[in-house]
């Protein structure tokens, strides 16, 4: 799917004449990929990298354009079962156009950073920055989910909440990898700023991007460390909750077992003293009750 847009008066708007200078290819078809490779001379491998979630972020210089592969968080869907994944995106910066290649259909160019776009280079930088902001928002959500799971674990005996926490831990590893990869990309863009036609305010913006990305990485690292270090404690809590349940069930079983024994002894089909006594039923009931009190007293005395 192709979306054509253009930069008009420092704003990005949908192209009215069908031309434009910003082309967004979402999950490009075979025909579109052929056009990009043959007509625009995009490197086939780099184009595939833009759609491959496992590729590292990088910067490559081609004769007619600069290729930027960046990492961004993939939008979460309920099938992901608390695993937050990352995806790649490709920005192909030509002198007169920017081609954006993405694997999935997500609304782009939202947020205050896109309210004023000075140039195509500026737009490319803001897209990298927007990816860091997206990572940061997802980190806050991971923290919220982790807190909610912790609340559930405190009273639960199920493994599913623990498994969800493991999924979050895995997500943070993906995020750390994506953020460190983007960090290297930002450094490379900074070193090659002049070659890419980036200067003035955009250079300052690049510094801000590096700081933001670094902070985001540190935050992900802290969350990951907290989750990893607390995991054993949470496993113990679930195990302990289960132990408490087993203990309660045991109390019930033993409390019923002794009176059952007393009643069964008197139910034997043999002659026993006082069997013809008119109050024998209540005597047996009384003995059964005494056995319950006895169990309770021993339990209390032993502090079980």
């Amino acid at each position, binding site marked *: 799917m192709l979306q054509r847009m253009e930069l008009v008066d420092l704003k990005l708007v949908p192209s009215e004449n069908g031309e434009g200078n910003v082309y967004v290819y979402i999950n490009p078809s075979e025909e579109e990929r052929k056009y990009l490779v043959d007509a625009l001379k995009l490197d086939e491998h780099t184009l595939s990298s833009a759609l491959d979630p496992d590729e590292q972020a990088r910067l490559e210089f081609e004769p007619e354009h600069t290729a930027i592969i960046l990492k961004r968080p993939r*939008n*979460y*869907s*309920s*099938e992901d079962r*608390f695993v*937050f994944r990352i995806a790649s995106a490709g920005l192909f910066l030509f002198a007169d156009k920017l081609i954006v290649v993405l694997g*999935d*259909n*997500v*609304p*782009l160019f*939202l*947020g205050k950073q896109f309210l004023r776009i000075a140039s195509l280079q500026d737009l490319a930088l803001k897209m990298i920055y*927007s990816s860091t902001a*997206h990572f940061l*928002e*997802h980190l*806050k*959500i991971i923290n*919220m*989910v982790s807190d*909610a*799971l912790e609340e*559930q674990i405190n009273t639960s005996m199920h493994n599913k909440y623990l498994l*969800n926490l493991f999924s979050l831990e895995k997500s943070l590893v993906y995020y750390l990898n994506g953020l460190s990869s983007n960090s290297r990309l930002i450094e490379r863009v900074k070193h090659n700023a002049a070659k890419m036609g980036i200067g003035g305010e955009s250079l300052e913006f690049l510094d801000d991007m590096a700081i933001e990305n670094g902070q985001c990485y540190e935050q992900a690292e802290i969350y990951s460390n907290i989750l990893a270090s607390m995991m054993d404690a949470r496993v113990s809590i679930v195990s302990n909750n289960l132990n408490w349940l087993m203990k309660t069930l045991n109390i019930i079983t033993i409390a019923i077992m002794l009176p059952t024994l007393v009643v069964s002894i008197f139910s034997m089909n043999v002659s026993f003293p006082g069997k013809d006594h008119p109050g024998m039923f209540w005597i047996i009931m009384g003995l059964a009750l005494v056995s319950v009190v006895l169990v309770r007293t021993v339990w209390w005395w032993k502090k079980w």
Partner: protein
Amino acid sequence: MVVHRTVVVTNPAGLHARPSAAIAQAVRRLRAKVEIRNRNEVVDAGNILEIMTLGAAQGAELQVTAKGPDAELALDAVIAEMAKRYE
């Protein structure tokens, strides 16, 4: 006070992580119990874990029900968060 409304998910990525978190936060601030129904599944809108497992894709028709003193406010807040566009 009980109020209901039906809303269609417009975001291409469906009701993903960020709107889910925003909805849960908005509901927790108000004195209302809000439920979201997607076909046969009903979840508590104040619980991020439940919203994230709702599986509401683009085009899904959700029934939002709010009870409590702030029911109307909570319903408006949930629908506003659902209508927001996220990257």
